[in-house]
């Protein structure tokens, strides 16, 4: 390590040298490799070894199980759709290779484009490079279908980083979740690549419907099929919600053996990540807990007042399909866009979770509501904080008055 540090020190751009403008880039790499040795020499400041880089790195580590499972799952559904296998553990190597070929380029493009933009702005503004994108760059590939063309990933990343983050002042200043901004851009910009029944299993765009049906799949996700229950009975994917629940068991969905976006399918892998984030204290348990509580609350409420088939779906089933679990652990907990007060965190999480299921169940046009619910909660977070702080001030003023009286 000593020799690397010596080399890095030697490469440090001088203030008056011709590479002076690139000092933020050098600084970014240097602090990535070594914890900065600077100490505070005035006042009583406490410095913690866990800086932004270590935090971000921990989140990326927590995402690894989702990524690995996503790669395998991508390969699995491709071979199921083409009729080469039906067993989950069959053709292990082929599935991994297929998944790698599909998913890895997306990860690389997302990182290369996003970090490129980040570096560009840091050099232009002469700011230190903040590692906010390390997590965003991993989140983007995990929340989109594996078949998304690479140029779309690039365009969406540029849009999200520039309009979602840099215009507000860079890392830590953004109002809405950057990865979800990228997903929303793709969702509204290229709806045919982000919804329907041609994209959720990799490589089936040109496979005719009859072949798919012969292989026992429709190409739709559970959410896509559930959305048909909000329409006329003739369009229902299954004769009843019971038939649906029998076809897709909660257990299969929990382990992630279902089609969907790359990293969102396996609740188990997401829980592994959640355990790490909660253990290290990086993600707020208050937000995670209340997000799930909000989802369950609306789920049970829909059960209790069920007037159509969709409303009768088991609330637990909602927790394990689509992006709900992924959103609860990795998206809504983003500390930059979440509420800052502890009471606010409960309200904020509950709002997000409740809205997610509300959009799913009551709006047939948007089968998945998690993305929009979280973006909405992000926008509401400062307002929630405002009222929580206001209420606290009022309470204390009142206490002061009674004491004085």
């Amino acid at each position: 390590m000593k020799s690397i540090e010596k080399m890095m020190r030697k490469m440090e751009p001088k203030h008056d040298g011709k590479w002076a403008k690139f000092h933020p880039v050098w600084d970014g790499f240097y602090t990535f490799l070594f914890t900065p040795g600077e100490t505070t020499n005035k006042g009583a400041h406490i410095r913690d070894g866990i800086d932004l880089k270590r935090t971000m790195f921990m989140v990326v580590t927590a995402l690894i199980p989702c990524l690995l499972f996503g790669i395998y799952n991508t390969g699995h559904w491709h071979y199921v759709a083409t009729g080469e296998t039906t067993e989950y553990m069959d053709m292990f190597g082929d599935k991994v290779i297929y998944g790698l070929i599909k998913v890895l380029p997306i990860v690389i493009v997302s990182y290369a484009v996003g970090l490129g933009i980040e570096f560009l702005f840091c050099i232009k503004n002469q700011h230190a490079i903040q590692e906010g994108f390390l997590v965003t760059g991993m989140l983007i590939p995990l929340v989109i279908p594996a078949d998304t063309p690479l140029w779309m990933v690039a365009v969406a990343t540029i849009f999200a980083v520039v309009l979602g983050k840099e215009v507000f002042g860079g890392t830590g200043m953004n109002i809405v979740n950057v990865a979800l901004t990228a997903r929303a851009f793709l969702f509204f910009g290229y709806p045919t690549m982000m919804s329907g029944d041609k994209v959720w299993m990799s490589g089936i765009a040109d496979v005719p419907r009859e072949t798919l049906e012969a292989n026992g799949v429709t190409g739709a996700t559970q959410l896509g099929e559930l959305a048909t229950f909000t329409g006329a009975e003739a369009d229902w994917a299954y004769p009843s919600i019971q038939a649906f629940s029998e076809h897709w068991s909660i257990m299969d969905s929990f382990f992630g053996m279902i089609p969907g976006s790359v990293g969102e399918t396996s609740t188990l892998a997401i829980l592994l990540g959640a355990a790490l984030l909660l253990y290290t204290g990086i993600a707020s348990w208050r937000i995670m807990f209340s997000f799930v509580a909000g989802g369950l609350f609306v789920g049970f409420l829909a059960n209790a007042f069920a007037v159509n088939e969709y409303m009768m779906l088991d609330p637990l089933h909602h927790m394990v399909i689509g992006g709900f679990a992924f959103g609860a652990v990795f998206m809504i907990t983003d500390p930059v866009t979440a509420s800052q007060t502890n009471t606010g965190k409960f309200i904020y999480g509950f709002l997000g979770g409740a809205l997610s299921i509300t959009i799913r169940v009551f709006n047939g046009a948007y089968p998945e509501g998690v993305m929009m619910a979280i973006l909405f909660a992000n926008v509401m977070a400062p307002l929630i904080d405002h009222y929580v702080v206001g209420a606290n001030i009022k309470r204390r003023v009142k206490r002061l008055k009674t004491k004085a009286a």
Partner: protein
Amino acid sequence: MSENVKAPKEPLFSKKNKKLVSEPLNDNNPVTIQVLGICSALAITVSVEQALVMTASVLAVLAAGNVVISLLRNLIPSRIRIIVQLVVVASLVIIVNEILKAYLPDMAEKLSVFVGLIITNCIIMGRFEAFAMANKPWPSFLDAIGNSLGYGIVLVLVSIIREIFGAGKIFGIQLFGDRIEGTGLYSVGYMDNNLIILAPFALFAVGLIIWVQRARNKALIEDH
């Protein structure tokens, strides 16, 4: 001041008058600086042609309206001035709308209610109130030209972005090949972006223009 002593006659294109036209184009743009007339900027900027027709309509209404209001400015009782202004702008809009329907029926259909809604365009009432009520007809006319051109520049810029990347066309000419037949760029997987057609993107585009303008024009940077 007695009637006989006249102020020296100002030349038609004095520095002050030129400024009336040039200022709204950049430093005091009605859309990007005053953030007026946003509704129409969102609604009709899907094609450059529509943006140009809209600009021309606003130009006609504002120029004529400013002159009329300026001529009447000493006759209008201040209590009912808004009603008088509304009557003037409403009659002008109806005339413009009828002309469009007669000579450009296709365009009139595309712009639909938005020509009628020029009445509610804040730029027009704003200029009546802020300028025409207190100035002579000729400066009022120049002020109208400047402001509607400033509005038009933004409209055209936004519509260029939206037409190229949203519909793959410019002035109705296909740029990247035929979308339905899948020729040109479309054959290698290019797709038009649907978000750009949606109204929210116009807001993003206006925001981007404001960003670029503020970064380039140091006079606009606010201290804080």
